[in-house]
């Protein structure tokens, strides 16, 4: 069954269809939670919570939205709630976002970031910037899909994403400058 049929079946009370649907999305749900919360256990908790919510709220999904953006909205909301409870975030504005000079360029540009560094850098982003990055890169969402999922205006999505990239670059640049590599 394709997703749309599964959803309809689930909404009309077919429990098996609903369970299948949940199985299909659980990895996506977990991935988002993992990169927003940056912690395996929290990600487990959050994604289970999200799946339970999807299970009990399946009837509130309307076809005018994409199912995947509806799902991601649920999981990002849960994660952002958790995130807020866990730790206060730093405003992105505390970092000066300036163009780098041309003095220290070449070899750094070509060197490869370590995944862990990237993850740490992502962790430093404010919640919504982080969510935008995660949806863009781990869910492969378009600007519009991100806007739907996060309930943000399109322009806001773009500016979050662009600013997040710029900050990531700065952070990773710092790592490389100060790091062993």
């Amino acid at each position: 069954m394709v997703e749309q049929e599964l959803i309809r079946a689930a909404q009309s009370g077919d429990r098996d269809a609903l369970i299948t649907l949940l199985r299909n999305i659980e990895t996506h749900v977990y991935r988002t939670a993992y990169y927003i919360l940056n912690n395996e256990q929290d990600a487990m908790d959050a994604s289970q919570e999200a799946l339970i919510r999807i299970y009990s709220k399946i009837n509130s999904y309307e076809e005018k939205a994409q199912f995947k953006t509806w799902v991601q909205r649920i999981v990002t909301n849960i994660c952002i709630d958790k995130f807020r409870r866990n730790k206060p975030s730093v405003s992105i504005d505390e970092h000066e976002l300036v163009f780098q000079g041309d003095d220290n360029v070449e070899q750094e540009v070509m060197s490869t970031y370590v995944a862990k560094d990237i993850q740490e850098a992502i962790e430093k982003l404010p919640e919504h910037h982080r969510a935008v990055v995660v949806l863009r890169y781990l869910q492969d969402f378009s600007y519009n899909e991100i806007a739907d999922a996060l309930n943000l205006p399109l322009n806001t999505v773009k500016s979050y994403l662009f600013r997040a990239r710029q900050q990531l670059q700065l952070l990773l640049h710092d790592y490389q400058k100060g790091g062993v590599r």
Partner: protein
Amino acid sequence: MMNCPEVMELMNRYVDDDLNKIEISHLMEHLKQCSDCSEMFERLKHLSAELENMPKVMPKFSLVDAIMPQLDLLDLEQQQNAAVRETSSPSVIVPMKPRWRDRMPFRTLGGVVAAGFIVGLFLLFNKPDSVQQADMELTSVQESSADKSMVMNESQTLDKGKTSTAPSTATYDAGTDTKAADEPNKADNLNETKPADQGKAPDEPAPKDTQQEKPATVPSEQDTKSTPPTKGEKSGQQDHKVGGSGGEQQVPTTKPDAKPDTKSDPKSDAGSSNQQSKKSDNGQGNDNSGNTDKSSDQEQDRRSISQEVEDKGFESSDMMGLMSLAAPGFDTSLADAHMEVRSEDKAFRAVFDEHKLVVYNGKKKVLYKQTLTDGMVTNPMWSEDQKTFTFEFSSKNADGTFGEPELMTITPKKSKS
């Protein structure tokens, strides 16, 4: 000619594949002339590529399997909701106040209930692992205030966070004490006095062919009718205000509280005490037969486990027997399933029925009540010192298989009498 900030946006949109050909050519044109932007562009592409290559992490185990017990519980609650709505209809004389409460939205039942609701929600959503536990409630503080104190310890070896739920519900229970104080007595009386004249009841559960039979074959009518009356039991009044079940259950929460002395309630009370008296009778019969069969074993173990299994009649076995038989489980989803386990000193009885576990003291008072999802109960036993009741619970998955058994521990405090 574009300035650098404008180009910055183009670069970003470029890595997002959001540029058309014309825009791309504008971008490239600028990059040729501006080394800063050109450098930035390289870095941006590099970063974006790295982000795209982030590990596609997977959960360690199936999350859906992990939440299956909670999902079952949700279904059960919904069923019960529907059932209570069905049975709550007309021709019942209902006192004014409860009636009024019935109609009120759940949240307006007062701070106490609201607190319960929040606790319920908290358990339901904040610690998904503990939803099953959320339905384990401490019961009857009104009883404890009268003649005994009682403490329940709940722990599950497989779940760290759960033990913390007990204290919070306990506090909350205490809060309801005054509210329900005038009602339990009546309920108690009903429960205590009725059993004598309820001889017919034991026939009630229709024997089934096999214990493992799917609940689907049980008429749903029976399902819905048999569950709600349990709410009428005395302790149910508080149970359902407190529980995690409260999160979704408006009706059962108000219901039992609302109608302690209406027509319907005595009935349900009678019904449940039927079963109680029946159980105790049966239990004794069991004990006897068990003693003749395996008395030595039983004495050794200082445990007496009596078990009523479907049409096989009553079986009695000691703990070793249960374990060596690879745990003849108790399927909680069967409407007419029934099993009871007594402590050796007869101070407590743990009684399993469809979807629930109730622990009674010697006086048939409900000390503890817990809703069980579909699943298999194995190895029920009282501890050596008769103070702790343990059993393993494997919840049933959607495909009919059973999950990992979880150890459940219940410690009722002995009444002083």
